[in-house]
């Protein structure tokens, strides 16, 4: 046990002192990890915000279900639970004939022209909100099956457009993140290779005096772990600083739209992603790069 404690302490000490002994390469590694994570994080946040924006637009895309003329207001209101029981329906807001009339007149400036219009010309209706706009046609059909519903209006063209847009954004996001990941891993791998190449002599000395591969590898792993963690933390701080700046700028220049707030729903997964990638690149990268020098 004593020897193991000695070793653990030695690995930690060596890993940390090696960061300072090769300060230039350590700095370069951290910079690359930070740059990669910030670029990737920015893209992910952009995609998340676009998705959120599409979600908002989708939630505005309501289905109007018109009730038969012969139903009284009370009978019409009684349909609400039936509508809510349909899959994909999140809520159903009842709009009476009078409310429909007022809404209709409200669209025009010259309200006097509609003095003679009677509310009975309009039908009671429900504004039906859906959770998945891609299933709006199915929801429309389900509403039509309700006997008391006379007609159903849904703007399928807009709904399909939004679905297509979301699909395109999702694919572009995935491809961009994959491309960025590939490019960054390539750069990272070469940085680590360079760092390990610089220390090939040191590794060969270790081999010469009888060090096992794990004895050689552990200080490098500790070093990679620490560099990865530092890189991830700096990148996380930088991302949120940039995001805060971007949020303020967006409000200033485009007041109608604002970026998603920095809630834990977004920040925690991003933090976990950053630290995961930081560790993965730092520990995995140095481990892989070492392999070629350990085969002696």
């Amino acid at each position: 046990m004593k020897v193991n404690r000695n070793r653990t302490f030695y690995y930690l000490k060596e890993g940390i002192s090696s960061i300072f002994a090769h300060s230039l390469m350590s700095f370069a590694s951290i910079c690359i990890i930070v740059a990669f994570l910030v670029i990737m994080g920015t893209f992910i946040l952009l995609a998340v915000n676009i998705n959120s924006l599409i979600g908002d637009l989708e939630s505005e895309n309501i289905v109007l279900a018109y009730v038969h003329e012969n139903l009284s207001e009370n009978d019409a209101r009684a349909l609400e639970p039936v509508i809510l029981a349909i899959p994909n329906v999140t809520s159903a807001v009842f709009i009476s004939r009078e409310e429909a009339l007022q809404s209709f007149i409200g669209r025009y400036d010259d309200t006097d022209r509609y003095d003679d219009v009677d509310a009975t010309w309009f039908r009671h209706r429900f504004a039906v909100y859906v959770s998945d706009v891609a299933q709006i046609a199915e929801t429309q059909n389900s509403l039509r099956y309700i006997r008391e519903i006379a007609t159903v209006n849904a703007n399928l063209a807009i709904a399909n457009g939004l679905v297509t847009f979301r699909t395109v954004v999702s694919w572009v996001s995935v491809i961009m993140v994959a491309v960025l990941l590939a490019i960054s891993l390539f750069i990272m791998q070469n940085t680590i290779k360079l760092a390990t190449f610089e220390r090939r002599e040191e590794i060969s000395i270790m081999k010469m005096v009888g060090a096992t591969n794990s004895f050689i590898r552990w200080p490098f792993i500790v070093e990679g772990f620490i560099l990865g963690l530092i890189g991830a933390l700096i990148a996380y701080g930088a991302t949120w600083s940039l995001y805060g700046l971007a949020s303020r700028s967006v409000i200033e220049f485009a007041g109608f739209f604002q970026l998603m707030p920095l809630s834990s729903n977004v920040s925690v997964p991003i933090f976990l992603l950053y630290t995961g990638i930081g560790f993965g690149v730092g520990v995995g990268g140095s481990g892989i790069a070492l392999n070629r020098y350990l085969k002696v």
Partner: protein
Amino acid sequence: MIRMNEVFKEYANGTKALKGVTFELNAGEFAFLVGPSGSGKSTIIKLLVGEIAPSDGEVVVNGQDMDNIKMRKMPYLRRTIGCIFQDFRLIEYKSVYENVAFAMRVIGASNKDIRQRVPYVLELVGLEYKAKARPDELSGGEQQRVAVARALVNNPKLIIADEPTGNLDPARSLEILLLLKKINELGTTVLVVTHEKPLVDQFSQRVIAIDGGRIVSDALDRYYNYESQ
């Protein structure tokens, strides 16, 4: 201690470095391995420390047949061999003390053992007063003495010195060889690879001469003059 029996080595590029080398070095012996550049000296060293495998023949080091050794066992064999090289091979950013202690850490020695053994070995090579210095603060001779201390610290059965005086002036070269002789007298087997005739002539020891991948002479107190053949 070392047994090479009809050892052949042909590299991937077709170079035949060794053409049936046979010699033995017994426990407690001191021998020089001499020969011109390209004669096969370095190949012998690489075979002895397990860096390469022979194409044919038998290589046994400290009782271990190098042809049958598993890769994971190699570090443990290397711990029984102390290696010294022409270019010293010290870790630049570690102090003299740490460079020597490092070889003990590799074998899992406790801090207490390291604190006891390293100063003793540094004293043996006359560098106890330079323990905190870094290699770039030392002369060539001092750096080589650190390398000797590192090779010695784990009390190996065998020390292989590959051109240990190649980067040193004659006085420092003699100093290093006297040190190696002293180590040998303490019981460690020593094989010194060199091509410096005047230095070898100062010692009345066994000289194994190699040329063109073959042993051309193996005799006590005689430097084989391959240039006159």
